[in-house]
């Protein structure tokens, strides 16, 4: 009896391993293109706010931090020769910030873009910033304040120039 069970278990195990191996064999070079709202708007308006408010060296400007942000007053891209507090944020850094923010919550970001930003309030970018999701940095924006409008507006494809600028000005 025991031996029959063991044999059955062995066959099952081999089948599972075989299935896993077969499923991994194909599409090894496949890539998934995640969607994200406008890179241009992000780099012009959203990144400056995130750099100032979130990208300090002790927060998301930390080299090992999730949603790592580069910026003039924070972490500089290791591929360039700049120092913290030196030259303005570079194109490479802005692009890296976009990639970083878009991939915090990639699947939900896809859904949000497909839904024209109507699900933006479920994204970690928004819930963490609002403090409704546990966030070591605490509450960063309040609902409908300039920072919140900057983030949500970008996610909805709106013009956020004024909101983001207002959010930055409040930090000075």
């Amino acid at each position, binding site marked *: 009896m025991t031996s029959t069970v063991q044999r059955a278990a062995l066959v099952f195990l081999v089948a599972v391993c075989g299935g896993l191996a077969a499923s991994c064999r194909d599409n090894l070079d496949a890539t998934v293109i995640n969607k994200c709202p406008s890179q241009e708007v992000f780099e012009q308006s959203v990144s400056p706010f995130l750099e100032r408010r979130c990208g300090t*060296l*002790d927060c998301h400007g930390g080299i090992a931090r999730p949603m790592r942000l580069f910026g003039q*007053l924070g*972490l*500089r891209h290791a591929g360039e020769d700049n120092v*913290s507090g030196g030259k303005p944020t570079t194109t490479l850094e802005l692009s890296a910030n976009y990639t970083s923010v878009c991939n915090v919550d990639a699947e939900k970001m896809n859904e949000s873009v497909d839904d024209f930003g109507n699900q933006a309030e479920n994204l970690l970018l928004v819930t963490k910033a609002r403090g409704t999701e546990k966030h070591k940095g605490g509450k960063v924006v309040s609902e409908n304040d300039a920072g919140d409008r900057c983030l949500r507006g970008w996610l909805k494809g709106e013009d956020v120039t004024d909101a983001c600028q207002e959010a930055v000005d409040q930090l000075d």
Partner: protein
Amino acid sequence: MPRVKSPARPLIALPIIFGLSISLGACRLDPTPQEVIDSLGPESGSPGDTHRPGQPCVVCHGSYGAVSPQMVFGGTAFTNDEDGNVIPAQGVEVIVFDSAGGSRKRCTNAAGNFYLEKEEWKDVAFPLTVKAGSRRMRSLIGRDGSCGSCHKIPDVDFPERDPETGAAYDSAGYVLVDPADQGACQ
């Protein structure tokens, strides 16, 4: 031959696992701050207000390091002498502003050190901003009360990129103040 099960084994293992859990819990090792503490090296003099200038104070004088006094904020101000050498800035007024509108003032001591004890600012609200002498810090302080965490002092393991400020790609360099700011705060 039928195998004989030994029900005693799990019973013996349980107290061992429990004991190990308690021991590990007592150590409460957190590798991130511990790595920073280990990197600071041994004490060069005796512990006190002027020791370890430039190092991240709160990593030891905070909840993990648990060294007294417990600090909410601490750092070291530097300036340049006539030859351009970086030296401790003494008697400089340092004002820390929090997000709730509060502020606290301290004077740097002979080593350039300054700190605020936790008891002196229990409801401090991050992010903070700082004015050291006549210079206002351009960025915010998000969550770390140790100036030295971001204003790392360049050394052989951490070469500076800007020889004037000591800044690097992941460090704002020295907390540098104007030489004329010294002595204004007693």
